[in-house]
């Protein structure tokens, strides 16, 4: 059942607007994410990192270049590319369980199969007892846990995550990072995760793509080979701090370009 695919991005550009008033949001982006890899894009706000995810999801149309997932070029949105958004996107009219089975229902799965998926993924994110709650009754962290379960229950080939923990307090964010790594370890989906939090990037990633802004370009690719599971004190490890400093430097020199 579990499938996992690669993402290949070749010389992608994205231009907003028309006529003389156009903005180049992405300029010649090339990167590839391997099957089962946890890749993180880190960059300043407004650098176009979220736009890149929307392009892969097929929610926006690219202006130039090519994106393929599992060898197929993108033709609009589809359930093969699951996505977790920064804003809360649970369907408020559905219960937690109904949210999780939304995708499987669209695919026409039977009730018994759907129940198996719901039970499995709600247990995976630790919300089995909340199955009959409505999203309005959940905290922000719980909403995002359900959103992760909902995306995975659809068995996508890749999982796109657009700053999913950006709106959470730091305590909850750390819990969510550990939970995500555990879930990823079980499913081993290809993940492309976008954040502006450098520590989050290093903690989660196999590889970190550092992006600069206006127009968005890949500045550097770093391989993170800290052993997993990465727990607690790793953020205090000198090698971790060194990498954090390097990325900060890359992002700061980008800042200086602006002035």
């Amino acid at each position: 059942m579990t499938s996992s695919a690669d993402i290949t991005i070749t010389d992608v550009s994205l231009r907003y607007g028309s006529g003389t008033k156009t903005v180049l949001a992405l300029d010649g982006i090339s990167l590839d994410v391997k099957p089962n890899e946890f890749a993180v894009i880190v960059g300043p706000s407004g650098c176009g990192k979220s736009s890149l995810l929307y392009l892969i999801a097929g929610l926006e149309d690219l202006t130039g270049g090519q994106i393929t997932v599992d060898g197929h070029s993108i033709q609009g949105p589809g359930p093969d590319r699951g996505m977790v958004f920064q804003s809360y996107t649970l369907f408020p009219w559905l219960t937690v369980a109904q949210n999780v089975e939304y995708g499987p229902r669209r695919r026409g799965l039977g009730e018994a199969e759907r129940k198996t998926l719901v039970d499995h993924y709600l247990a995976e994110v630790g919300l089995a007892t909340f199955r009959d709650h409505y999203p309005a009754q959940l905290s922000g962290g719980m909403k995002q846990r359900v959103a992760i379960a909902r995306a995975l229950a659809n068995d996508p080939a890749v999982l796109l995550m657009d700053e999913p923990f950006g709106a959470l307090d730091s305590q909850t964010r750390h819990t969510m990072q550990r939970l995500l790594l555990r879930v990823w370890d079980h499913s081993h989906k290809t993940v492309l995760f976008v954040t502006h939090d450098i520590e989050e990037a290093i903690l989660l990633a196999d590889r970190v793509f550092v992006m600069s802004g206006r127009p968005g370009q890949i500045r550097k690719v770093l391989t993170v080979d800290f052993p997993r599971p990465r727990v607690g004190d790793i953020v205090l490890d000198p090698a971790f701090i060194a990498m954090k400093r390097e990325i900060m430097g890359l992002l700061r020199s980008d800042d200086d370009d602006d002035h």
Partner: protein
Amino acid sequence: MTDKSPLSAALVPYRPISTGLSVALGALVWALVLGGWMYLANGNHVPSMFLPDPGKVLATAGKLAMDGSLWDNTIASAQVVLIGFIASSVVAVPLGLYMGTYKAVQAALDPLVNFIRYLPVTSFVPLFILWIGIGLSERVAVIIFGTFFQQLVMIADAARSVPRDLVNAAYTLGTKRSTTVRHIVFPATLPAVLDILRVTVGWAWTYLVVAELVAAKSGLGYMSLKAMRGFQVDIIFLAIAMIGILGLITDQGFRLLRRVIAPWAA
């Protein structure tokens, strides 16, 4: 802030008050209005020809309820409102949802709808009488004309305000673009749509009375007009009170309906 008396709490902006105080305040205002009415009617401050005693209105209500004319007229009015309102809503809800979702539908309808919805319904009454006559269908036409375009614009607004990422999330979960209105926009706007229906059914009652005052042989507006000719001001008061009561019942009915079919937005 240290004073704990319930009245001082009521003077703090936005602070909740106890249920007892809430009920007492509502009852107090009603009592003041009714008391003022009794005072004016009984003390010969206003001739009873213009302002009947509340007791007289109650007595008339009992009398007309007994002879059945109160119910006949109420049912006649409610029937017109119901037919007109349902006919209008059945088209306005889906069309409004598509209008708010698809820019092409909006571009096609907006200019016409925004022109028509500022035309006073009353100005069409003579035209409708000429075209349709003075039967039930004319009054229904007035209600439809009065509510449809308002409903359309408000429902389209509700559909437009559905968060884009909610729709995007649905796409990434396998929702087809052609089913977006059915699977996402309709349930997402359901609480708002029910609120819009609740508000516009009130307007439907207003247009009903306008229609009945001009051309009708039954209904609360007709009852009122006939009473005016006979200086039966108590009957006019009764007709107004009945419309108020029916409005209150409809309003509560829609609130209940919203709790039942949209429990997530309670």
